[in-house]
């Protein structure tokens, strides 16, 4: 059986003229498929909205509370496990040094003192070099270049502060 144009009218819920309506009625009497199409369409349009059982919002609030607690607990356990794991890893990495330190502490202490002395002298040397550079550079750069440089640094600082502020104020969910 040819269902056109009736199937098209029914599927697209097209408005029909009284003449078309009569034609459609006639077709529906003889066509079980189009009749089923019309009937299911009508049912779909008239079926009521189903409501949830009363107290839905209270149940949601309770569930949200539970979820928040579970999330907090998970985060806490996560950070505890992460810290313990990190400590264990650190111990594993440091264990050979610790063993050798315990075996001969004098060697280790003299090595550490030597290293600290080296660090101190290096820092002093760097500070001297920095002072020399700082006293020489201003004469090389014009004041305008200094202004541009300082403005750029200030702009970058502002950009960084704004992005941190935006990240902080963004709601992070539960």
């Amino acid at each position: 059986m040819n269902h056109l144009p009736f199937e098209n009218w029914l599927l697209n819920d097209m408005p029909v003229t009284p003449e078309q309506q009569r034609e459609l009625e006639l077709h529906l009497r003889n066509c079980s498929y189009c009749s089923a199409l019309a009937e299911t369409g009508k049912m779909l349009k008239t079926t009521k909205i189903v409501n949830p059982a009363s107290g839905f919002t209270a149940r949601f609030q309770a569930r949200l509370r539970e979820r928040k607690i579970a999330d907090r607990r998970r985060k806490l356990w996560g950070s505890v496990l992460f810290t313990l794991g990190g400590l264990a890893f650190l111990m594993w990495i440091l264990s050979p040094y610790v063993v050798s330190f315990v075996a001969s502490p004098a060697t280790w202490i003299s090595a550490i003192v030597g290293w600290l002395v080296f660090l101190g002298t290096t820092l002093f040397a760097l500070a001297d070099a920095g002072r020399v550079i700082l006293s020489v550079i201003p004469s090389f750069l014009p004041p305008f270049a200094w202004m541009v440089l300082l403005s750029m640094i200030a702009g970058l600082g502002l950009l960084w502060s704004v992005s941190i502020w935006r990240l902080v104020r963004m709601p992070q969910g539960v």
Partner: protein
Amino acid sequence: MNDENAWVLQAQRGSDEAFTQLVETYQKPVFNLCYRMLGEPEAAEDAAQETFLRAYQNLHRYDNSRSFGTWILSIAAHYCIDRLRKRRFSVLSIDEEDEDGLTLEIPDPASPDPEAESAKQEDRDRLHLLLKDLDETDRAAVVMRYWYDYSEVEIAQSLHLTVSAVKSRLHRSRRALAEMWQVEKPRAYPERRSRESLAF
């Protein structure tokens, strides 16, 4: 700015009271969508609750220029589609679920014609069961189109489909429902035909 937008903005700033207002407003459409998608009130309740939790967690991603209703129904539809897909692969077959057509719609005994009302209810239950045989996305499109009067454009936005795909899915679903209806109820339509007009 209307109340809803104000609640959304307050909720985005972290107000649980404002979000509760949104839950209060949208619980019915969200629950109904889940019920039509999943077929059982218990699963629908769980899915609706989960939908609101997901919305709460992702509120910062909500684009205020869109309708909140469309956004939350889109979350519900996607959640139900995922759940149905998982269910399809799980050990429990859909055929093993409650086939009694569990429904919350109780015919009103005080209505003028309780018998006709009861027959209508039976038809609605049958249609509800037939919906289960549709593809998950097709089912979501049908529910949005016929229960919420969503336009094809809105359905396309909610389900991340093209408008022509939505149209074709709706047509395919309507044809499938009609064919299943014929098989399920071959003798009922001549009786109804004599009583009432089916066209529109």
